[in-house]
């Protein structure tokens, strides 16, 4: 039976063999890059046509088709951007990238705690190697921070899993029968911490800004969108579909985590002067918004959270990819924004559309995402939480619209339209999906 994951696995092994072959036959590296692109494309198409892996530890749930679809969509676009951007890079990057995508899609499908942990480690292992392979200034620092916190969180996750096993006698999500609650609950609490590292919830976020800033912006686009989405989806899988722990206490803990994440990330973002750090902190606060939806642990809220994850993944990918074009012309600080239009008009427009979507400005998908989350909060009576979220959204006005204030419209009309290159086409595709994505919204 053909499915997306099968194609990714076969493609991964095929790429390794192809690279081996290259050493004897001496053909160009770009053959491997094209092959990797083909693997990603074919897996996207087969996901749409044939669905996902459905065997042993992995099974489809109602949202996995949508999430894996957009994960493969975003990854394919980011990979093609990377290819167009870098031209020559080691074939190892292709293998790592596909392994990371495979890991992300498997997280969504896992029906067993062990499978979740293994696939999330496949994703993390590959992504910190990718951070290092970006080879820009300070990548080593970023990669080291990423590796060390990832290792810690991996150990924490394993510890949590062992506690859950001690309590429930099984790691599978489906057959929980007799549960000894003391180790079980402790295990789940530890798992929250472990996954908090992956999905950058405050107070487990400290690695994220440095890593996001240090790595190549294209790779940052990948880890802020796909890798983070996988981390949050793992939360949904474990706490909503797996161990159904819905109680008012869990909701309170989750809401507190989410609000802290949004608030602290917002405060930090206001203080920043470097654009990439602002984006990094804003991407952390987005995780908090998605987590608000998960916190309620009911179907309406979770499906709104799923849509929200989609919306910020697209917007973050768009932002960091457009920023990549800016970055190579030396735009790093807020005051450099006035030169943006002279670098690339399409990338500037993409950048600011991304900012608007992250803020939640209508009619982008970010707006619909926030609308759905707020609607689910309101319809379950969390009116004070909604009030708090509003105040935090006001806070975010400062750092999102502060970026606009440095714009210079003169540069727009003065510079001639250049020929569109392939990187800008990818940015355009993201811009379109920022609006067309509304079609996937459900209540």
């Amino acid at each position, binding site marked *: 039976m053909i499915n997306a994951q099968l194609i990714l696995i076969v493609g991964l092994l095929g790429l390794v063999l192809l690279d081996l072959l290259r050493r004897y036959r001496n053909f160009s590296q770009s053959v491997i890059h094209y092959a990797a692109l083909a693997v990603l494309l074919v897996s996207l198409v087969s996901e749409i046509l044939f669905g996902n892996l459905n065997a042993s530890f992995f099974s489809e749930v109602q949202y996995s088709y949508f999430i894996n679809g957009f994960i493969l969509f975003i990854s394919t676009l980011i990979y093609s951007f990377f290819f167009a951007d870098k031209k020559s890079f080691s074939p190892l990057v292709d293998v790592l990238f596909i392994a990371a995508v495979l890991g992300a899609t498997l997280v969504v499908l896992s029906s067993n705690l062990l499978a979740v942990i293994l696939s999330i480690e496949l994703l993390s292992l590959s992504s910190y190697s990718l951070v290092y392979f970006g080879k820009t200034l300070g990548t080593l620092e970023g990669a080291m921070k990423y590796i060390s916190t990832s290792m810690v969180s991996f150990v924490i996750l394993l510890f949590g899993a062992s506690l859950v096993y001690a309590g429930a006698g099984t790691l599978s999500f489906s057959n929980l029968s007799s549960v000894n609650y003391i180790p079980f609950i402790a295990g789940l609490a530890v798992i929250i911490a472990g996954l908090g590292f992956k999905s950058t919830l405050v107070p487990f976020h400290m690695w994220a800004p440095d890593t996001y800033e240090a790595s190549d912006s294209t790779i940052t686009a990948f880890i802020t969108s796909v890798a983070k989405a996988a981390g949050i989806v793992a939360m949904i899988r474990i706490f909503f579909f797996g161990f159904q722990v819905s109680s008012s206490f869990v909701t309170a803990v989750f809401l507190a985590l989410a609000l802290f994440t949004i608030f602290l990330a917002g405060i930090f973002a206001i203080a920043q002067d470097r654009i990439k750090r602002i984006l990094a902190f804003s991407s952390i606060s987005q995780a908090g918004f998605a987590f608000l939806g998960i916190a309620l642990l009911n179907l309406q809220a979770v499906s709104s959270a799923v849509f929200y994850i989609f919306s910020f993944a697209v917007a973050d990918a768009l932002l960091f990819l457009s920023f990549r074009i800016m970055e190579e012309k030396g735009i790093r600080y807020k005051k450099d924004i006035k030169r943006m239009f002279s670098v690339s008009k399409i990338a500037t427009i993409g950048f600011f559309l991304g900012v608007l979507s992250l803020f939640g400005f209508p009619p982008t998908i970010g707006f619909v995402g926030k*609308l759905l989350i707020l609607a689910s909060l*309101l319809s379950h009576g969390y009116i004070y939480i909604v009030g708090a979220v*509003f105040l935090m959204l006001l806070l975010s006005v400062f750092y999102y*619209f502060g970026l606009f204030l440095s714009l210079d419209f003169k540069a727009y*009309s003065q510079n001639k339209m250049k020929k569109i290159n392939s990187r800008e086409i990818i940015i355009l595709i993201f811009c379109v999906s920022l609006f067309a994505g509304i079609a996937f919204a459900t209540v």
Partner: protein
Amino acid sequence: MIYLLSFLLLPFIGIIALMVNTFLKCRMREEKIVGVVIAGTVAIFFGGLALGFKGISIDLVSKIGFSFSLGINSLSLPFMLIAVIIPGALLYTAYKEIKDNKAFFYILYLITYASLISVFISYNFILLFIFWEAAVLSLFFIISFWGDKDTGRASGMKFLVFTQLSSLALLAVILLLFSYTGSFSLYSILQLASSIPLLIQYVILFFLLVTVMIKMPLFPLHAWMPDSYLSAPTTGTVLLSSLLSKLGVYAFLLIGFEMIPAAILHARIILIGIGLLTVLYIAVVATSQRNLKKLFSYSSMIYMAMIFIGISSLTTAGADGAIVLTVSHSFIIAMLFILTGTLKSRSGSYEISSMGGYGAKMPALSVFFVFAVLAVMGVPGLSNFVGEFLVFFGAYSVLPIALIGLIGVIISTNYYLSAIKNVIFGRLSRAGLRDIGKLETLQMLLLSSFVVLVGVLPNLIISMSRGLI
């Protein structure tokens, strides 16, 4: 039949034309394109008044009830009248004032124009919110980038933070209405709104008040207003004061008056109290202003507060008065701010002390200035009088003590008259003053003809708001 979609299509074509004009370096004047678009829209509007409008409804995302539906409700027409005509009259001011980045400015101008009209004809709350936010964002750009060089950006930010709070409160209102009626459509919410529990209606009213009190603005949520009105270019100030503030009125009438009257009925004493407080407080604050633009900014709040009183009295007279006052205030405040902008270009600053004796050198300007100030003071025969009369008539029947609001009107007479005295009369301190040109006279004539028309035949506006339910 006139399709309502054309109110969106025409500005959209205009925006495309402006973009093509810049990219291909056609060197066509941007003002001409915008002028043609607005003239077309005005023609469509009056055509529609004669022939009737035809709405449209397309389901965009049926799962969340988001449909692209336009239609005329019972309130649309008076609001559309001001939204269609005032930017047209304002265009000449923009032409004289805006010299750099014209293409972008006029794109924003058309976005504001189209979205303001569309707010009043949206039949779906998500659609309404989209247009509402589009208008806010383009005004933010206009204040920040074409406003005062030193204070523009900071004021723009302040404006945005406050209006985002009001937009978020509106979003909360929309979501609450949605979660209790299951629809975003104006029509079905109107049908089902009375079944919402009273407690929830109070919550809705609270959020609605945040929206309205920031947007209009009312004391104590008016902190953004003086800075933004002062720092914005004259075009921006007029758009803010005569149109954007009316979004608050529209929201209060549509959601408050039509959908949750039960909550307002219980709270109307407090609401009228808020309005009276604003009237009295602002009358005192405005008296101490030495800056002409700030004076008119503050004094415009008095009329917004009267509109608020009229609506919250929940009487037919009060609501009619509020609508008449809305229309008349838009025209008058546009005249006042345009004239203030002209005065600033002559004397170099907004300070009243730098002006004086302009009556001798600039007769035409002085005539219109005196006319506008008399109109805003509420001289019978001009439009504000009718509105004020009806508002206080309505408020009196609910709460007789509301008449103390008239003290505010009396105080305001004092500073209006002293403004006339200091600007028009007095000693001439400056040479080389030029009177307003022909086109500016035409612009003023257009605006003042509506002031007289509404003053003499207020029934036109009142019947407009009832005729087509």
